[in-house]
Structures are given as structure tokens and as C-alpha cells.
């Protein structure tokens, strides 16, 4: 099966190279059959890569430890669900996932545009196949998922999946992120095609805009799932830490957000063509750059870059992408001239432009601060750590401007807006913002956090404009159709998916940022050591450590704590937090000690509410048991060495019988020692966090995703033709 897999990867490489050649030859020689053949090569690649990926999944399900990636990231005790997710926890598996997703999405776009974009599509096919060649090449020669151990050295048990990755979000987070990255390659490829052919009009934008939106949606969902994982699994209580891998995904997302806005200006006004192709080329490059940051380990240390087998090829690819992009844009500058000028600074175009500048500034800030340790290390030899505090003074004000624009954008019209109209549209949202501001200042005594309060007021303003838009749109629809409110609302959204999907995204992002502002500015966290029966007070809540808990299985020992939470004497909730220890593969820690010395993971005690989240994690550790553990280590190893001589003279069957007996005693000893944890009253350390409005971060992200889906959902071709026919008829009358 490994041989088959390796052959499929090589076949994929051959298909990709053929696809590049056939497409370019077909385009240059105007031989349509070669272009069609190049397009079919993409479909074939998708089939081959899907087959290869299924082979890897089968190897995981069958515990085929001859495969190195199975031996390194799985074990027989891993559940079926996590065996499904384990392939992308390794370098090689991730690369395969990348190529597979790229080939699937590419097939989809090329199938959808097979009768259109006749000049651009072949070059786009070549670019997409170029990416496939690169990533498939890495999978073939640098990190092969089908690499196997020699038959004599196949382990009987795998090292297991990192416990931190055993979390439900890991089923979706990496495929979503990679889908976002690979989808971003599609508008990138078509932009390159458009630049090469010089056909820079509306056509390529119309046909690939949807993929840019899909990239935005998938990447956004991926980022949110990562934040959720961090919040519920990592045991530090946060959802965003400005970690390099987080920033690697955020930068292309911000960039594509700018693109899906500014592209509308080009669609409508024929303006900003240079800016738009630059944005999409930058988004595509940042997507590959993100993969590079995560996969090459360059940020862990500049030295890792040289050691990683992936560093140099990635830098070469990025160099080609950046230089090629700049070259193409410069070459086509005459064709990218604007057809129109900005009519007025008081128009939606101007707001979009401003929003674009803010987003690009944000990308630049994040890029600089993320890479600063690397830059400083290259310049001075010493890595300089800037950390999260360096992001906030820049990102927070920029985010405030963005939310304000998210509110202003929807109520300002294209081309020109009159002040009187604008004023009229400002009354309701502005009033809402004022009410929120007054309420917060009066009730929350929160004057010490001006930025958070500004975010709430601006967020309320943006939410107000969106609600007003929905209300007015529905009212206008009702005036024509006399439908009931829900029916009118439904048909309004259905007929204007892009507009109202977009508004929902604005609503969601405002809700999300309100949650972020509240939870980061007004959270109370305490690090306390408690004995059973003792309690600690955090933000008015009384957390009482009721009793310790313990659970020991063959694969994991869990120490935990039951916490009772009360406020003002009345019971709020009871929560359970545990810390699990996995057996270590390091046998020097002792026969018994090994079971307490491996990797650890936390399970968070969480009470999520509408207004606030109560979050607690224990760092209960086996330290108080070390006396028993050492005693057990000594006893078992002395016993084993004393019977070793006798044991070696026994027949094989008796030997294994003896050993299984020995192991069952050992397991009983481990369980017995672990149980001591609950019979004693050792002090345990807790991290307790009370933070407001965290739930709204996830709700907001959900609204954004729903808005994205609505905007993305294809308008039935029939409905579009029908509405186009109406305009055509009307215009024909006027023409006559």
C-alpha cells in the first residue's frame, strides 16, 4: 500500500507538470484541445490525490505502524474519530492535505468556468498546477506521507497523537484553514492569468469573486475554531495570543477582507484595478507565507530554518511569487488604468478605500511585529521579543476605525451621498450608540478603559445601522408585495444575498469585537492554591474547592477537582476541572513513575453564560505522590531483576503468562497510587478567570459565517436570468 501511495504521489507530480505544459502550449498555440486536456489533468490530479489521502486514512484506521506517520502520530488506543484527524497532525500529512484540497478546489473552479474565461483559464490552470507541483514535490521528496520503516523495525505500538490535538475542533480546524489557503490560490491564479493575457476587465472578477469569498469564509471559520480550541483546551484561559501561527492565518484573512470590499468598486466603477490585483496577489502570497511560517519553523529560531527541509524551497517559491507579481503589475500598468474617478469623499467608494487602507495597515503592523524577532536576529544576532503588548497600541485603534466604517458603509450610497440623507440615516444608530455609551458609563464604572468603551459604542452604532438596513429594506419590500414581515424579510435577503449577507457579516464582526473588548478589558483572573474546603473570591464569585477527583485508565491518569461556585450566598454552578497525564515513553522515569511523567493536558471547568464566563483549570500534579511512586519504582524493578534469571529459563508460554501477571500487578499499583490523590487533602493550584461576554465572540463569529454563507450561496441561474431579462426589456424600451 505504501508503494501504491508513493507511486500515486509521483503520478500526481507527472500530471501537474503535464497540466502546466499542456495549458501553456494550448494557450500559446491556440489549440483548444490542449487547453481542455490541461483542465482534465486537474480533475485527474484531484482523483489521484483523493485516492492517496484515502490510503493514508486507511493506514491510520488499520494501525499500520509500518507507515512512519502512523507510528509517530497514532496508536492502537486512539479512538476512530481521532485516527481520522491524525493524518494532518504531521508535516507530511499536512502537505498531502494541502495538495488534495488545492486540486479539489481547482477542479471546481475550472469546471465552473469551462465555457468562459477562455484566454485566462489556461494560464490560471498552469499557476494552480504550479502550486500543486511544488507541494506534491515536497510531499514526494521532503516529507513523504508514505515513508515506511524497514520490515524488521516496525513498532508494535505507535507514539500516539499529541493529547492537545485530541479535541473535537481538530476535525475541522486544519481542513478549514487549508481550504482557506488553497481557495486563495484560485483568485491569485486567475489574477496572474488576467495579467498575462491583459484581459483585465470584469469577466475574471465575476467568475472568481465567489472563490475569494469562499476563501475568506473558510479561513475565518478556521481561525475561529483555532481560538475556540485555545480557549477550551490549552489551559491558559485565552482565545488569542498573537502567536505567530495565529498571525500567519490572520494576515491573509485581513487582506482578502480588503479585497472582497474593494473588488466591488472595480465591478461598479472600473476603478482601483492596480490596487485590486495587488491585493489579491498579496493575499495569495500571504497564504503561502502563512503555510511557510507554520511549516518551516523559521520563527522558533532562525536556525531551524536552515535545518528544516522545507525552508529553502518555500523561500524560493515566495520569491518567485513576489517578483513575478510585481513584474506582471508593472508590465500591465497601462491596461490597469482607472476608468473613473472618485466622485466624492462622501460615498461608499471612499469608505471602502479608507477601510482598505486601514486593513492593509493592520496587515503591515502584524507582519512587522510578528517578524521582528527574526529581523532583529538577522541584524544583531540577538532575537528581540516584542510580544502581545506591541500589537495592541496599533491594532486596537485600527480596529476601532474599522468598526466605525462597518457602521457607516451600509448607510452611505454609491457614487454620492447627500448630507441630509446621511443625517437622517445616522439618527437611529447614533442614538443607539449614545444610549450604550451612557449605560456603560453609568452602570459599569468603566471609565478606566476608554478604548473598550469606544468599541462598545462604535459596535452598537454598527449594529444599529445593520438593523436599520434590514428594517428599511423589509419595509420597502412590504410596500411592494404586502407580504407578512418574515416573508418580506426572507425574500429581501434571497433577492439581495450579497448585500444582506455582507450586512450580517458587519453585524457579526461588531458583536465579536464587542465581546473581545469586554472580555480582554474586564476579565478578572486569579492564581490560587487551595486545599479541599477552602475557597477563593474572584470578581464577586466564591469558588470553593469541594473535593479532589481521580480516574486512572491504561492510557491516562486524571487528577481533578470539583469546584462549587456561589455568588452572594446563592449557588451558581458546580464545575469539574481535570489534568490528565499520559504515560511517558522515557523508561528512565521508572516502572511506575513512567505513568505519571508523560505529557499532560487540561480539561477546563467552564460555565458559559450570556453575560459572563466562569473558567477554571487545575494544575493538580502527581508531586505529592512522589514518595509512593519512588517506592513502587524500587519494589517493581527489584522484583523483576530478582526473578530475571529464573524467568529466562522458563518456556516462552510461561514467560508471557508471568509477564502479563506482572503487568497487571503494575497497573493495579499505578491505579492504587493514583487513588491516594483523593484520600489525602493536598493543596492544589488553580487558575480562575471570570470574564464578561466571551460567549458573544463565538456568537459573533457564527453570525459572520452565516452572512458569508448567504453571500456565497449561488443565485439560481433561472432567477438571475429572469431579473436580467426585466432590465434588458426596460433598457430596450429606452433604447428604442
Amino acid at each position, binding site marked *: *500500500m505504501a*508503494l*501504491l501511495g508513493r*507511486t*500515486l504521489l509521483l*503520478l500526481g507530480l507527472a*500530471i501537474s507538470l*503535464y497540466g502546466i505544459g499542456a495549458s501553456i502550449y494550448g494557450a500559446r498555440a491556440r*489549440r*483548444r*484541445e*490542449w487547453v*481542455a*486536456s490541461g483542465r*482534465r*489533468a486537474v*480533475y*485527474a490530479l484531484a*482523483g*489521484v490525490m483523493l*485516492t492517496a489521502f484515502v490510503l493514508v486514512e486507511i493506514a491510520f484506521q488499520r494501525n499500520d505502524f509500518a507507515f512512519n506517520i502512523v507510528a509517530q502520530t497514532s496508536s492502537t488506543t486512539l479512538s476512530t474519530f481521532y485516527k481520522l484527524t491524525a493524518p494532518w497532525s504531521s508535516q507530511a500529512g499536512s502537505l498531502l492535505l494541502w495538495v488534495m484540497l488545492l486540486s479539489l478546489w481547482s477542479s471546481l473552479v475550472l469546471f465552473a468556468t469551462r*465555457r*468562459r*474565461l*477562455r484566454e485566462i483559464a489556461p494560464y490560471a490552470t498552469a499557476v494552480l498546477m504550479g502550486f500543486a507541483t511544488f507541494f506534491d514535490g515536497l510531499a514526494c521528496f521532503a516529507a513523504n506521507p508514505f515513508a515506511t520503516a524497514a520490515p524488521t523495525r516496525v513498532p508494535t505500538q505507535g507514539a500516539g497523537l499529541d493529547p492537545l490535538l485530541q479535541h473535537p475542533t481538530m476535525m475541522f480546524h486544519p481542513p478549514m484553514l487549508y481550504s482557506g489557503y488553497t481557495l486563495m490560490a484560485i483568485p491569485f491564479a486567475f489574477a496572474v492569468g488576467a495579467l498575462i493575457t491583459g*484581459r483585465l*476587465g*470584469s*469577466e475574471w*472578477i*465575476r467568475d472568481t469573486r465567489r472563490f475569494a469569498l469562499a476563501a475568506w469564509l473558510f479561513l475565518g471559520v478556521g481561525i475561529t475554531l483555532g481560538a475556540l480550541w485555545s480557549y477550551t483546551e490549552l489551559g491558559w484561559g485565552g482565545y488569542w495570543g498573537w502567536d505567530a501561527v495565529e498571525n500567519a492565518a490572520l494576515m491573509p484573512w485581513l487582506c482578502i477582507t480588503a479585497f472582497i470590499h474593494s473588488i466591488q468598486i472595480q*465591478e*461598479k466603477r472600473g476603478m482601483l484595478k492596480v490596487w485590486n490585483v495587488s491585493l489579491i496577489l498579496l493575499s495569495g502570497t500571504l497564504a503561502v507565507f502563512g503555510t511557510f511560517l507554520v511549516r518551516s519553523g523559521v520563527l522558533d529560531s532562525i536556525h531551524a530554518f536552515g535545518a528544516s527541509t522545507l525552508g529553502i524551497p518555500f523561500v524560493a517559491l515566495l520569491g518567485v511569487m513576489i517578483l513575478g507579481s510585481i513584474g506582471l503589475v508593472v508590465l500591465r500598468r497601462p491596461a490597469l488604468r482607472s476608468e473613473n474617478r472618485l466622485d466624492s469623499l462622501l460615498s461608499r467608494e471612499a469608505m471602502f478605500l479608507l477601510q482598505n487602507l486601514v486593513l492593509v495597515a493592520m496587515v503591515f503592523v502584524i507582519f512587522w511585529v510578528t517578524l521582528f524577532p527574526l529581523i532583529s536576529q538577522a541584524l544583531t544576532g540577538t532575537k528581540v521579543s516584542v510580544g502581545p503588548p506591541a500589537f495592541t497600541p496599533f491594532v486596537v485603534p485600527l480596529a476601532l476605525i474599522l468598526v466605525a466604517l462597518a457602521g457607516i458603509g451600509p*448607510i*452611505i*450610497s*454609491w*457614487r*454620492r*451621498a*447627500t448630507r*441630509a*440623507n446621511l443625517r*437622517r*440615516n445616522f439618527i437611529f444608530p447614533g442614538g443607539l450608540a449614545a444610549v450604550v455609551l451612557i449605560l456603560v458609563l453609568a452602570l459599569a464604572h468603566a471609565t478606566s478603559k476608554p478604548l473598550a468603551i469606544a468599541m462598545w459604542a462604535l459596535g452598537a452604532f454598527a449594529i444599529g445601522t445593520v438593523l436599520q*438596513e434590514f428594517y*428599511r*429594506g423589509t419595509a*420597502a419590500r412590504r*410596500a411592494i408585495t404586502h407580504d407578512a414581515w418574515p416573508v418580506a424579510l426572507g425574500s429581501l435577503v434571497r433577492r*439581495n444575498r450579497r*448585500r444582506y449577507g455582507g450586512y450580517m457579516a458587519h453585524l457579526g464582526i461588531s458583536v465579536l469585537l464587542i465581546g473581545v473588548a469586554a472580555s480582554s478589558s474586564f476579565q478578572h483572573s486569579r492564581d490560587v492554591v487551595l486545599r479541599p474546603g477552602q475557597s477563593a473570591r474572584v470578581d464577586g464569585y466564591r469558588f470553593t474547592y469541594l473535593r479532589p477527583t481521580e480516574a486512572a485508565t491504561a492510557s491516562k491518569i486524571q487528577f481533578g477537582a470539583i469546584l462549587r461556585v456561589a455568588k452572594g450566598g446563592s449557588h451558581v454552578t458546580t464545575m469539574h476541572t481535570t489534568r490528565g497525564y499520559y504515560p511517558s515513553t522515557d523508561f528512565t522515569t521508572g516502572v511506575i513513575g513512567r505513568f505519571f511523567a508523560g505529557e499532560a493536558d487540561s480539561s477546563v471547568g467552564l460555565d458559559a453564560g450570556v453575560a459572563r464566563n466562569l473558567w477554571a483549570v487545575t494544575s493538580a500534579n502527581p508531586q505529592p505522590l512522589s514518595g509512593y511512586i519512588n517506592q513502587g519504582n524500587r519494589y517493581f524493578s527489584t522484583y523483576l531483576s530478582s526473578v530475571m534469571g529464573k524467568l529466562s529459563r522458563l518456556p516462552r508460554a510461561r514467560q508471557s503468562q508471568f509477564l502479563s501477571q506482572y503487568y497487571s500487578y503494575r497497573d493495579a499499583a499505578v491505579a492504587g497510587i493514583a487513588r491516594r490523590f483523593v484520600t489525602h487533602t493536598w493543596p492544589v493550584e488553580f487558575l480562575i478567570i471570570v470574564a464578561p461576554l466571551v460567549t458573544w465572540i463565538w456568537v459573533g463569529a457564527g453570525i459572520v459565517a452565516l452572512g458569508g454563507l448567504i453571500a456565497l450561496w449561488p443565485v439560481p441561474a433561472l432567477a438571475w436570468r429572469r*431579473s*436580467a431579462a426585466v*432590465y*434588458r426589456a426596460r*433598457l*430596450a424600451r*429606452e*433604447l428604442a
Partner: protein
Amino acid sequence: MVYVIVLVILFVVVFVITTPLRRGSEDDPESADQETAQAAPDVLELEAQRDAKYREIRDAELDHQTGKLSDEDFQAVDSNLRAEAMEILRRLDRARAGDR
């Protein structure tokens, strides 16, 4: 067994990829069925422009209905947009005529 599977996959891949080459450009069903497939790239580009313009007219109408454009602004914007749309339609007609 593996070799058989590899050969089968290789055969399928080669078959899929070379189908258009074997058919040749003349009777490629993908190019022969629809009028859009016959259309010159210019026509397709103009059609995309036309669709975007229709969308823009509809957006302006909605902006007017929801009170973002005053009556006189809407009149101005709408007549501009219609003029632009008509220009695109004229060019589209010319392009189609030239194409035949």
C-alpha cells in the same frame, strides 16, 4: 496486485487527460454546444460588464427605497447608470454582430 492497480489508475488517468486530444478540436462537445461557447472573448467580457451594471442599477434602486439616496440624487444616478448600461448593450450588439 499493486502493479495491476497502478496500471489501472495510470490507464484511467491517461484516458481522461487525452480524451480531448483524441477527439480533436472539431467535435469537442464542450466547445460545440452553447452559444456562449461560440462567443468571442469580447462578448463574454461585455456580458460580465452588463451583469455588473444590472446589479448596480438594482443596488441603486434599493438604496433609493431604503432612503439612502434622495429622489433627485436617485434620478441622476439612475439615468447615468442606464446610459452606461445602454452603451454596454450597444457594444455587445456590435460585438455579437462582428462575431457572426
